[in-house]
């Protein structure tokens, strides 16, 4: 018998008490002002939120972000911003090591924990979210859910090889519990809430 059959037959030989799945339809917390909750959560984990009236304001808003102004290599996944590194033309993600700034759309935001959902569905190298020195995500303000239960209800998991909730910049507290921003991934995260 191979290991798979062995494990499965051992498991099936055991008789466990019947246990049903719970209902996940519960009175989960909702927020009076979800975008205010979202903003304060992002700020509490070292990120920044900027509110824009329309996507047309993006170039002006980014012009005020010092990391964007200083950036030499820029990757953009949003129409309003022109980057100078074209992801689709990059064969090997290792070439992205020198990227300073990346700006991408986020599908939706979660008020409860300040997370933004992004996927690699239209991104040819998922490494870009993690290898860039600075990251900005653009999310329509009406695409905001209250809590994670609502979030999972709207995600179709499995349609892309990566889906990730990003909450704030990369960080570590592994040296004496002191918070350091910029562990391996982006040193800063800016979320533009549009609308």
């Amino acid at each position, binding site marked *: 018998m*191979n*290991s798979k059959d062995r*494990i*499965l037959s*051992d*498991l099936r030989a055991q008789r*466990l008490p*019947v*246990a*049903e*799945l*719970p209902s*996940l339809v*519960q*009175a*989960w*917390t909702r927020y009076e002002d979800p975008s205010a909750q979202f903003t304060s*959560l992002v700020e509490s*984990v070292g990120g920044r939120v900027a509110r824009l009236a329309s996507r047309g304001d993006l170039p002006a808003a980014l012009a005020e972000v010092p990391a964007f102004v200083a950036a030499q290599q820029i990757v953009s996944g949003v129409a309003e911003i022109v980057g100078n590194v074209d992801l689709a033309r990059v064969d090997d*993600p290792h070439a992205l*090591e020198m990227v300073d700034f990346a700006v991408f759309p986020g599908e939706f935001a*979660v008020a409860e*924990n*300040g*997370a933004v959902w992004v996927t*690699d569905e239209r991104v*040819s190298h*998922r*490494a870009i979210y*993690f*290898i860039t020195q600075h990251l900005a995500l653009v999310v329509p303000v009406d695409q905001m859910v209250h*809590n*994670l*239960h609502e979030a*999972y*209800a709207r995600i179709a*998991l*499995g349609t892309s*090889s*990566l*889906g*990730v*909730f*990003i*909450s704030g*910049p*990369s*960080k*570590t*507290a*592994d*040296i*004496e*519990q*002191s918070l*350091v921003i910029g*562990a*391996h*991934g*982006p040193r800063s995260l800016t979320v533009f809430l549009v609308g």
Partner: protein
Amino acid sequence: MNHAPLAAEFVKDRPRAQWHDATLWFVRAKRDKAAQSLPEWETLRDCAAQIKAHTQYRLADYLEQFEREATKRGAVVHWARDAAEHNKIVLGLLRNRGVTKLVKSKSMLTEECHLNPYLERNGIEVVDTDLGERIVQLAGEPPSHIVLPAIHKKKEDVGAIFHKFLGTDEGATDPNYLAEAARAHLRAKFVAADAGLTGVNFAIAETGGLVVCTNEGNADLGVSLPKLHIASMGIEKLIPRAADLGVFIRLLARSATGQPITAYTSHFHGPRPGGELHIVLVDNGRTSIRANEDFRRSLNCIRCGACMNTCPVYRRSGGHSYETSVPGPIGSILAPAGDPAKFYSLPQACSLCGSCTDVCPVKIDLHHQLLTWRGELGRKGLISWHKRLGMKLGSFMFRHPAVYRTVGTVARKLTPWLPRSLVYNRFNTWGRQRELPEFPAESFRQQFKRRSREQQR
């Protein structure tokens, strides 16, 4: 070894032991704040416990469903009955592709399987990329905590390690400076790696996907640059539905560090275009724990570390005193299941305060199981003769009130007159670090009788 002498060694350096205790308590306090911020906290815990119980009940079905779905999405699923088989599978995957450099993100399972030394013996360079894990790896030590691997190291220690291995300035202790040096050092490792290995926080039967949570983004970098992604997971990591993640992700980071969610909660489904994803499902004793009604629930653990942060014994004895890959309350239940003779002292180290049970997000009755273990170890004859003798005498005394009263009277009258050497000797382990309380003139019975008489008057 035995927990007590190792713990004694740890507390010798008093200021450091107190610092360790306070640091973990700080993390525990953050957990409390996060838990209290959600009115539905207890509902979430109930749901989590029920989902886990249900998954256990139908584990074989869910494992098969997971394999089917994962395969559909292009992953390759491997099955390993024990640590040796797991290690062999991983080495085989690496060898077949000519991989010599592997980057790893946190995986307690690979610690359990001792994968690193095995791969290194076989000529593979293994780099742990979680900063805490890298610190202990460079120091040549195992992690001392499952979420905070280097929690026993002070910044001076980290500075010294980095000075030696990464060439940072001698005496440098600034966490920002040290972390920046580690970032540069590990970036080079990420870029040079031919493969990335991650642990798994949750595996979803319904979709065949994996969820990995990190704050650093190291798992994501490690599996987005090289073409090969290997994910190692215990068979108990399964959950039935994607919707169940709503419950577990809300509980995990809040319980672990008090964060509302980790910086990155990554969901992997199949390999990335042009890449490969291999998932190794590992039993390594889990099936036999599942067979045991008393300890089955210990498999529900989501490795948040909350029981360690709250444990008065763990905080004061350090993770290394347990000599297991998973220390603390949950480790003291899991380890004896694998090797009772080696780990017999761990359930004894518990004070049965029950704090672990209070904080556990999946409602494992940790302290009850630790008590059950003690009985079990007693039956296996794995408890020292003086402890057994003491228990026997104690039990006899408590069953015979007259004996109890006599012993009480003699102890009360006699002890104050005895020379110190007779009272504080090696048999009185309680008196090693503290004085016995003062013996009262009257016993409780006598006091009670006297007071009732006085009241009647």
